[in-house]
């Protein structure tokens, strides 16, 4: 049963990922991305990581894809019609080959390892367990992320602000 669900969701996630790449229109890409995110969320659920699945759906599928669509609509999906990069065929094919090689390499490296059966606690992946780990063992990174978010906020404000008027030099006292 788990295997069937995994194959179905995994296949749909892959379809979504390829759709993002080959779609001609940004809106279609964003919708395929939504499919990919939702399917990843389901995969997390199959793995027993409920909290991760929920946050995947809320944060990625909910907030981020909506933001993408919002920006695309704001710019106007027609103006970004020429979405697929033209030219540079050599580097494109080279990057495809290298990408496939990379995927095969990492896939083999992961596959070559015989995994011990996951000995997770019975409450593994619940909101409770994730919260507990976050506030005890991983307290420091959790707190540091707040600085990271503050930096991101300041950065967004600085960069989104228009160019300031030419500075008027204050007379020095």
């Amino acid at each position, binding site marked *: 049963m788990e295997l069937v669900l995994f194959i179905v969701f995994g296949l749909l996630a892959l379809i979504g990922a390829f759709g993002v790449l080959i779609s001609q229109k940004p809106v279609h890409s964003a919708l395929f991305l939504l499919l990919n995110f939702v399917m990843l969320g389901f995969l997390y659920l199959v793995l027993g990581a409920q909290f991760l699945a929920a946050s995947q759906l809320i944060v990625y599928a909910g907030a981020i894809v909506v933001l993408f669509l919002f920006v695309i609509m704001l710019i106007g999906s027609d103006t970004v019609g020429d979405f697929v990069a033209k030219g540079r065929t050599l580097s494109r094919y080279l990057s495809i080959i290298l990408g496939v090689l990379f995927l095969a*390499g*990492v896939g*083999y*490296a*992961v596959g*070559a*390892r015989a995994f011990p059966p996951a000995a997770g606690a019975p409450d593994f992946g619940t909101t*409770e367990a994730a919260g*507990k780990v976050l*506030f*005890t*063992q*991983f*307290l*420091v*990174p959790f707190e*540091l*992320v707040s*600085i*990271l978010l*503050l*930096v*991101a906020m*300041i*950065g967004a*404000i*600085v*960069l989104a602000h228009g*160019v*300031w008027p030419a*500075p008027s*030099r*204050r007379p020095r006292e």
Partner: protein
Amino acid sequence: MTITLPSISLLPYLPEIVLLITALLVLVIDTFAGEKRWLVWLALLGTIVAGVTTWSLSLGPTLYLQDMLAADPYALFIDMVVLIITAISLLLAYDWLNSHAHQQGEYVALLLFSAVGMMTMGAATNVITIFVALEILSLSLYVLTGFARERLTSGEAALKYFLLGAFASAFFLYGVALLYGATGHFDLVGIGKNMAGTGLMAAAGVALLLVGFSFKVALAPFHMWTPDVYQGAPTSVTAFMSVGAKAAGFAAFLRFFHVALAGSYATWGPALAALAVLTMTWGNLAALNQESVKRMLAYSSIAHAGYALVGLAAGNALGMSGLLFYLLAYAFMNLGAFGVIIMLEKKGSGDLSMSALRGTAREHPLLAATMAVFMFSLAGVPPLAGFFGKFYVFGAAVKANMTWLAIVGIINSAISAYYYLRVSVLMYMVEPDENTTDVATNNRPVLAFALLVALVFVIGIGLWPGIWMQMAQQAAALLG
């Protein structure tokens, strides 16, 4: 469910906390301060207080805060290097900020946040903490790069840096995931203990982590962003990131390889040596005919990352302390070189061409002499700081039976002498060009003071390398 709250001892993290509070104060005061110039001085005061705090912390090889951070001499050494870099960078930015008064508060705050990220990277003993600290540092730098809003190149550089940097972070994170999958641990000691028999999966994880680190410290072939970003960013930001990001990146790099991968030196030693050769050679050859001084120094910084990597590839105690010494020496000479560029560049251009240097010694003899000292130090001429940096890392390579690596490094130093000396030749021995004599140098005491500090240290470290090397040795002793 009962939760036992962890014991929280924030004392060893005090230097970073002081900087954080200063950054927040700067942001708050910025909103109602009429005279923004004081913000830089406030930040400088915070940096000095943090430095005093670091100095007064004398801690052993202790881990604290759930073993996420270490308060060992190694972390304190990196703290000091980063704080010195931050202080000088604040002074270098002073004049530029006066003409960009609207952004002053954000600039200063982001610089301090970035410094917090760097210091945390030096102390982090857990790959998750390293990653978050790396992101704090990088995100601040992406934004700082784009601060010269009036120049398009600055925005271009910021976007390029952001996109490629995000890519590198993804590699890093993928590496962390694979490493966790293979060993079941995030902390460096735990990874080290469970490394045996993990085979290809852990190796792939380490390789991906290596890509992430290499990007941040600009090792070839992951250096493509460096010239454009260094050239486009405001020069005071370039100075800060060229030395700060390198110091922090190498700090975490070294701790990771020596703590988590101590047992498998035979595998990663030669790989890092090959990377060092590629980086040195590529950086030096590309620097040879650059027309922009900032671009030249960008390629030179790639080459210097290669020299520093020699110390890591050597894998012995001398290599570690040599690398730390190198980071300190490089900080002063590179900050100084960029300081001279800030002094000479035309207002609003954000760059300095080689031809603009022609004959500047005639009008600004002191400045030209200062630049010459920094260039000689970068080239590795004794008895300046740069010479001893190279001396120690190459010596470590010889000790590790990698004499060939030291020879490649020395050949590279000889190549690099060409473009460093070219700067001095242009300044001293060429007639000033009629069209390019309008390099801007007005009376700028703050900048001059920063240059003086850098100059004193470059000469001081060169004359008394023993004191600094001893500090570096104490710092590195606990890792090995």
